[in-house]
């Protein structure tokens, strides 16, 4: 089946079987490999993208359900909030292996878009679904606070 998808502001035509998770369409068909596969059961958040502005697990989003939505992946995360988050991530040297970080960043962008000044509790609650095997959580939370300050400044 052919599907028209709007990804990072561009219209893309893909050939995929119905029921294929958006994750694999992004990675295997469109070579947008910044979105990662971690568990396939929406339990780690490595595959997080934005669908119509909301952090969404692409491993549980069928390609047919992504038609007529606006999809943003890490490659297209370039707005003011995204820039602040990525800059904060670098300043705090958050990353270790890096495999979960696209998903962490997409969730963090979602959080700060909804709530520009989150409390520690807000951050921990919102980021609960993004697992990091290297356990970079202390720095993730510091970076979100820093990004929040950058956006307020």
């Amino acid at each position, binding site marked *: 089946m052919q599907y028209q998808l709007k990804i990072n502001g561009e219209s893309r035509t893909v050939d995929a079987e119905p029921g294929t998770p958006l994750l694999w369409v992004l990675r295997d068909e469109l070579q947008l490999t910044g979105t990662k596969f*971690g568990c396939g059961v929406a339990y780690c958040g490595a595959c997080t993208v934005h669908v119509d502005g909301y952090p969404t697990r692409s491993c549980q989003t069928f390609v047919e359900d992504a038609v007529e939505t606006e999809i943003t992946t890490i490659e297209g995360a370039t707005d003011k909030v995204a820039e602040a988050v990525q800059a904060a991530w670098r300043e705090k040297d958050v990353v270790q292996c890096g495999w979960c970080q696209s998903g962490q960043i997409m969730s963090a962008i979602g959080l700060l878009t909804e709530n520009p000044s989150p409390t520690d509790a807000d951050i921990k609650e919102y980021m609960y679904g993004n697992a990091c095997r290297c356990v970079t959580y202390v720095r993730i939370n510091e970076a979100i606070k820093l990004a929040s300050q950058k956006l307020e400044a």
Partner: protein
Amino acid sequence: MTINVSRRGFLKATAAGTTALLVGVNAKGVLAAGSTASAATDLNPFVKIDADGTVTVIIKHFEMGQGTTTGLTTLVAEELDADWDAVAIDFAPANTERYKNLFFGAQGTGGSTSIANSFMQYREAGAAARDLLVRAAAQKWGVDASSISVENGMLTSGGNSAHFGEFVAIAATLEAIEKPTVKTPDQFKLIGSEKLHRKDNTGKTNGTAMFAMDVNLPGMIYAAIMRSPKFGGTVVSFDDSGAKDVGGFIAAQVLPNKAGVVAFGKNTWAAFQARDALSVEWDFSAAETRSTDAMIADHKAMLDAPQFDVNHEVPLASVAPILADAATTIDAEFDFPFLAHAPLEPENCTIEPTEKGVRVYDGCQFPTFTQPMVAAILELDPSQVEVKTLYAGGSFGRRANATSDYNTEAAMAFAVSGRKVPVKLVWSREDDIKGGYYRPMAAHRAKIGLDADGKIIGWDHRVAVKSIVKGTPMAGMVQNDVDPTSAEGVSESLYNVPNFGIGLSDFQTPVPINWWRSVGHSHTGFVMETLMDMVATQTGQDPIEMRLSMLDGGTANQARMIEAIKLVRDISGWKKGDKRGFASHLSFNTCVAVVADITVEETSVHVNKLFMSVECGVAINPDVIRAQMEGGAGFALSTILRNQITLTDGEVDQYNFPDYELLRNEEMPEIEVAIVPSNNAPTGVGEPGVPPTGPAVANAIFAQTGKRIMDLPMTKAGFDFV
């Protein structure tokens, strides 16, 4: 000391397993200028400089997040006086002679050795390149070399000033000096700096960093493997009629070793779906069919009659009469489960046909094993196998094993595919959790004898665990029948303990096991530090004071550990009678001490804060060290709390993160890390944060509840983290 045993062992293992790779050694030495012949900008095997002045440091280790790329780059940039922002990195190809780990004699990463083995090599590579550039500039400018200064990637002499790139062409024609002068610690600008950021920061925050699973090649097909549900089973027959209904399914084939059936698809999803739709008949005659309870019982039975004495100077039999005279004894028994490494990027490997052979794309932890193993399966010469190392999405030991398991699977899949197109093998998370190569199960039993004054007079310690290295190409590490990784942490304890006998039994199972972050120390550290806490409780001593008193033998590592313990005591404000938990442990030549501050309500444990100190020699990148302590501690927390792989009739009970749950953001405590100032040679930091964290928390639970945690994970004792 573990590290030395390992070094010798690896050399033996390498000699036995990969002799062919070592034939034709280039005798010029690693710092020979222009030794790579064709590439004029390679000043030596570790330093490449472009005409625009960009320095590329060739990284002989792989990067799984531990910060090695940043560390090795720091060493070169320091001696080269390079502009940090103009230094790039590239991973080395498989070339054992040139890029071997100097502690192993093999090209590979592990044992927290990357910085330790490279410390002088990478500095000398930077210093040698700097010297070449200076002499090239002297030649070009017609000035005396001594008039040239180097700073931030620029060479200057009088009115002349230009960047490195201006001189690389001439530099590559000069002969490098054999033993360049390196800086003294007071001259360091980058080593020890708090201002350097990680080299992999940008790519890993904008989605451009290339990991092995990100490889996309023209015409590539995807592979997933149905493996035996019981370890050691083999394929009798299979039916792929269900797979034929999966869109994108290409074909299914039995692997040549009959360990599984590979399904090929047009994309990863099709390969997974087709694989899941296969119906396979298995032969379980050689498979593991026991359940976990029976395996624990079998481990404990082996503790009754240890097979080997680990410490030949104190045979176990000599300890019994001493313990018979003890005023009191402390008796304790521990058991530990299988653990999956669960790197967040599941195992994967791509093999591409090339003109001369194949190219292997992998987050490759041990090229010295991967290259010949893949070559053997494809009946190629190792030189026909190019290994392209990419970022690894975690490993924790999983990507290093003597059988190169998933690399060889990919080679088998490529072989049965017809070898015409690239094949990408991808493991699902279920494959990873159920797929073996676990931290082995282990059981310990200890009987500690105390005299009437509460002094230890003898210690009978027994361990039952499957050997990691026996029966593998790394069997050269075995000494006197003892796999040194089985009881490390007990056998090399820093404490002065008289009459310390250690018995070991090798558990047998077809379940494949492997090194897992901190290896034997992952269980021995927990046992030793729990036992020390029990001795302190029994004798009414402060746990920190007691340890300090047992570290007074005057050895260098005891002195380092004393420094670490005193530092964490100070930053935590520890007081006698403290209801917090303490533990300290030496592993991989690094001393780490931890104070755990927790709150317990009934059986719900909340870890408020961890204080950690580390003595790891000179701190190359202090922030990377802190990050590894934070990560190691967090890695230990989910482990002791709830992680376990259990079997029912030989089949793994867990399937994915819902029942092998990683630590979550809200569960991570506050953490404070202090580094002991040191001018000792650097030692590793990737693993040593793990061993003492678990027992520090367990000792805190005892301090507050009176309950000892001896069977892991803690959920077995009814505890939960909140």
